Each structure stands twice: as structure tokens, then as C-alpha cells.
């Protein structure tokens, strides 16, 4: 029983790591129906900038706002150079290539600046595990769960309560109509990219004490997060959390009870089942495309 609880804890922590990255996919998809495939790289940049500050002796809690500002800038750059030209010429797929390309550029840039190693990122809490209900959990894992939920809540509240957030939701619902109502929709799209990179960079600093920081860390995590976004539904913030936890727990449980060699298989099977039964994701709204 202890082992089962331990696996559930680790699965939830792992799932929240995936979920907090996947959240960024959902933000840009809502406003512009485009995705930033460089999400994993934004996460990595956040972690590396955070690590640099941490090595300079900056306090962990102070690093977070600085990295968030960095994320805003980085996301705006991606949108301006990668996505805006594609949207302007109404290219269906141009943004896929350009966001992947920008991701590669960011990764190479990071390798040149920070080297190619994998580094330890000292978290703000103790490394010793706590014992809860007979199983161990790291304080940092609890912090990741709290941080991820807090971040998602803040973005949701911002979208629902503030006038700027309402502009985002309006653009998400009907871009042309909100353009006619005087909302600067291209600015809203830029903003959604900035916000998505902000969440990614924040996630980078949040999870780096658990995952280690390195220039190549973005790739595989970004891909797992993408699967989470598909399973949970690209239009639902809540779905992302659930999707992340489903995948995280399925990984640890399969790893222990079946074989560690097959631990990635159930998540892919879940992905295929969701795509064939409910392509918009478990919690996604089904959209009807009128032609």
C-alpha cells in the first residue's frame, strides 16, 4: 500500500510538471488557433536564466518575477517573428515550421551561452523528503503542485475579471467580431504568446530543482506536455491539469506494476483513444468549423 501511495505521489508530481508546461499551449491556441512548438525551449530558457540569477546569489523568490518578465519578452519575440507573418498571409501551417525553427535557434543559443551540461538548480526548500500517509514526498514536489495550480488560477482570474482578460476571451470566441468591436486582436494574440512563454519560463524555474536544468532539457518535456495538452483538451485549463495527472500516474504505475520498459506506452494509448473518440480532448469544447 505504501508503494502504491508513493507511486501516486510521484505520478501527480510528474503530471503537474507536464501540466504546467502544457498550460502554455492552451493559452495561444485559444486566441489564435496556433501553438508555440518552442514551448519546451521557453521552459528551458526560463530555467537557465533562473539558474544564472541563482548562481549570482539572487533569492529564489526574487528570481521568479524576473524570469516572468523575461518570458513576456521572449514570447513577444516568438509571436512577432514566427507567428504574425504566418497569420497575416493566412498560412495554415507556416507557424508550425517557424515556431519549431525558433525553438531550435533558442536551444542552440542556450548551448552557446550556458554550455551543454546538465546543472543542479538549488530549490528554495529542503531536499529531505516528508513522510505523509506512509510514503515520502519532496517539499519541492508539493511546491510544484501548489505553484502550478496557483499559476493556472491566476491566469483564469485574469481572463475572467480584468478588462484585458475579457479582450482575450472575446478574441478567443470570435476574432473577427471582436476586431469589429474595437479590440486590437493582433495585440491580444501577441499578448497571449507573451503570457504563454511567461507560464513556460515560470514552469522552468518551478520544476528545475526536480528535473535539473540544461540546454537540451526542453525537447522531451515539451513533447510529453504536448501529449498532455491533446488528452486534456487544448481549450480547457482544467483539462490540462487532469490530463497531466492521468499521464503522470499512468507512467509511474505502469513502470512499477508492468515494466519500466513500457512506461510510456499507456500514455500513448490514452492519447490515441482520446483522439479517436473525442478529438477535442477530454475536457475540450467541440468546435464546429463552418465553411
Amino acid at each position, binding site marked *: 500500500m505504501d*508503494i502504491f501511495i*508513493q*507511486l501516486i505521489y*510521484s505520478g501527480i*508530481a*510528474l503530471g503537474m*510538471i507536464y501540466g504546467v508546461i502544457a498550460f502554455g499551449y492552451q493559452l495561444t491556441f485559444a486566441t489564435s488557433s496556433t501553438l508555440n512548438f518552442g514551448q519546451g525551449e521557453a521552459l528551458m530558457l526560463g530555467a537557465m536564466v533562473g539558474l544564472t540569477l541563482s548562481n549570482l546569489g539572487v533569492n529564489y523568490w526574487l528570481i521568479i518575477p524576473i524570469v516572468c518578465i523575461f518570458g513576456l519578452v521572449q514570447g513577444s519575440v516568438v509571436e512577432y517573428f514566427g507567428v504574425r507573418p504566418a497569420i497575416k498571409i493566412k498560412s495554415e501551417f507556416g507557424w508550425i515550421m517557424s515556431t519549431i525553427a525558433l525553438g531550435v535557434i533558442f536551444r542552440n543559443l542556450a*548551448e552557446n551561452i550556458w*554550455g*551543454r*551540461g*546538465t*546543472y*543542479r538548480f538549488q530549490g528554495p526548500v529542503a*531536499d529531505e*523528503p516528508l*513522510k505523509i500517509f506512509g*510514503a*515520502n*514526498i*519532496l517539499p519541492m514536489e508539493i511546491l510544484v503542485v501548489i505553484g502550478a495550480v496557483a499559476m493556472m488560477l491566476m491566469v483564469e482570474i485574469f481572463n475572467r475579471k480584468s478588462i484585458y482578460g475579457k479582450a482575450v476571451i472575446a478574441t478567443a470566441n470570435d476574432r473577427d467580431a471582436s476586431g469589429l468591436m474595437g479590440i486590437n486582436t493582433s495585440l491580444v494574440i501577441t499578448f497571449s504568446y507573451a503570457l504563454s512563454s511567461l507560464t513556460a519560463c515560470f514552469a522552468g524555474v518551478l*520544476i528545475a530543482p*526536480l*528535473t*535539473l536544468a*540544461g*540546454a*537540451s*532539457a526542453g*525537447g*522531451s*518535456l515539451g513533447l510529453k506536455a504536448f501529449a498532455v495538452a491533446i488528452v486534456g483538451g487544448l481549450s480547457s485549463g482544467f483539462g490540462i491539469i487532469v490530463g497531466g495527472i492521468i499521464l503522470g500516474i499512468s*507512467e*509511474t*504505475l*505502469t*513502470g*512499477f506494476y508492468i*515494466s*519500466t*520498459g513500457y*512506461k*510510456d506506452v499507456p500514455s500513448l494509448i490514452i492519447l490515441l483513444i482520446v483522439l479517436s473518440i473525442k478529438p477535442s480532448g477530454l475536457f475540450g469544447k467541440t468546435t464546429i468549423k463552418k465553411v
Partner: protein
Amino acid sequence: MLKNINKLSFALCVLFGTMIAGTAFAQTIKIGVDGPFTGGSSSMGVSMRDGVRLAAKEINAAGGVLGKKIELVERDDEAKNERGVEIAQELINREKIVAMVGYINSGVSLASHRFFQEAKIPVINNVSTATAITKVQFADAKDKFIFRTSARDEIQAPMIANYAIGVKGFKKPAILADSTNYGQLGLADLKKALAAKGITPVAEEKFNVGDVDMTAQVLKAKSAGADVILTYAIGPELAQIANSMAKVGWKVPMIGSWTLSMANYIDSAGKNGEGAIMPETFIQSQQNTAKRKTFVAAYLKEFNPKNGRIDSPVSAAQGYDSVYLLAAAIKQAGSTDGDKIRLALEDLKTPVVGVVKTYNKPFSSTDHDAITVKDVTMGIVKDAKVVAVGEK
């Protein structure tokens, strides 16, 4: 139009002319260097490259080989098999290299070497350890062009098993290996070595490169009652194993292949990584020969690594030695012809003083491995450095 074509053909003539002249009157001896200089294995790749650079610089300063300077053609394979293949073809066909040193990742070695074998260009594989590199691949070929200056898994695995079972008296080992060629081939060698001692591992667990959570693997080993963990993987994931063990509050010794000495394992695992034990051909603190002393001093002066610690001393030493062995062979052959260099390597007349050891007839036509069991000692991670087991 005609004029343009004339111009073009003239330009082409000039171009080809210089290319032919370039190869016919080569003033340097081109040696290819391949390794991962980026990514998770880069601490080994960069240390190896720096060792190679240091050796080439020293040889050139002493007048070069056959009156020519050594020119290194370095390429980053990013630890990717397909990049290794591209590099092999580029270096053979375009750069026209004389010989090749390098290779960190066993998968890249096994994917790339056949091109050199076909082109009759000798390779001194100086870091990757899969037994198959010198033992299985091209086993049927009459002349084999792949040599090695690293301790193959067939040596390392029995040493690991012997230390864990024979010296320490553990009875229930669990094996944790990554899913790459390196991990899986090492796992097979390790199982064979344990079987020879009449021991079956209580658990065999896999993980992928880039995995961030090892709870499931560690818990399986724990619930199987393992009293020691044997590893075959690279730095970042080894660190995740150590960290996950600390998380679930379970501590048994970790003994594994030499990658437990990688800087990114030692640094990333921090205090969780202390006490890990691995076989090593060279330990930085063991400066017990004159050559080792001068090598460490020259390396630290040339590259000035952080805290005076070579990131991967084993890779640096083996890389350094591989260039000296190659230079000795070219000198003895009196030629840069691939087949003549191979024959010279298989029958080196004068001993070569290296960092790992003094190479006295290191290779023969049937044995292309320079390192034997007695050249390898056990190292342990202590205060973020690797020292010899039992060293004060």
C-alpha cells in the same frame, strides 16, 4: 552566354586544380575527431577533445610526424547515431582524413565505423565501451581497422560484478540501465558476469535518456529486496536515480560503469551521489607516474577547468593517449596510407608512454583492445571528486 560558360569552366578548372594540388602536396596530416560536444554526454566528449588537442599540440611543438604537422578536423556528433554516419562520410570523402580518433557513445561508434572499415582508414576508438565495437563488428573481415583505448564493457562488467559480489559480499543486485545501445549492451554484459558468479539480479529496470523521475524503477528494486544497485547509464539519469533513492528514503550502495565518474552525475546528484563506485582507467588524484603528473599539469594550464577538476579525466587521458599511439604508428609506417598505419598499430615496435599506462605492443592483428583488466582500478565519489577506493 558562351562567354559565361567559358568563365564558369575556367573557374571550375581553377577550383579543381587547387583541390588536386591540395591533396597531392598536403602539408599536414589530417586526423578526424568525433564526439558529442553538446548534450548529456558532452562532459566526456569535451574532455576527450581537449586531451586530443593537447597531445596534437605537444606533438606539433616537437616537430610533428614525418616532418608534417597534425591537423585536427573536429566534428560534434551530438551523441546521435545518424550525425555520426554523416560525419564519417564527410570526413572520409571531403576532408580526406588519414585516421580517426574519438567516439564516446557506443551507438554512434557502431553506426559509423563501417564507413572507415570500408575506406581502409584506421580508427582509434578512445572512449565508447560496447564490447561489440572491437569484438563483434567486422569479425569476419580479414583486416580490421577499429582499435580501442578504453576499457570495454566485457572488462568493466566483471569488475563491477566482482567488486559488488566478491569484495563487498552483496547477494541481491538490481540492475538499472538506460534504453540506449550503451545501457542495453552493458546490461547484457553485466548479467553474464553475474551469472558467472551464480547470481541472478533481483530486478532489471529500464529508463529513457531525459527521464526526470525514477521512482518506479527505484521502488521496484527496493521491493525486490535489492542490497546494491548496479548501473549502466550516463550522468544526468544516474543523478536522477540517486535523487529518487533519496526521495523514497532508501539508501543502498550504487556501483556501476565508469560513467558514474561523469561531472554531471557528481554535480547534479550532490550529496545523494556520494559513495558511488566505478571502474576507472585514470583517476585525476592518482598522479603516480611522471607522465600522469605532467599530463594533469599541462591540461590544467591549457584548459583551466573549474575548481581544477578535469570533467572526465578518463576521457581526457584516453583521448590523449590515442593521438600518441596514432602518431607512433604513422612514424613507424613512414606513410599516411591507412593499411600501413593499421599494420604498424598491430605491431608497434617501440613502447609508447601514455597517461593510462605505457603501451608495450598494445595491439596485435587479433586483439585491438589496448586496455586489459590490470589497467583498471576502482574509483569512488568523495567530496564531489573521484578518488581511488581506499585512498585517504
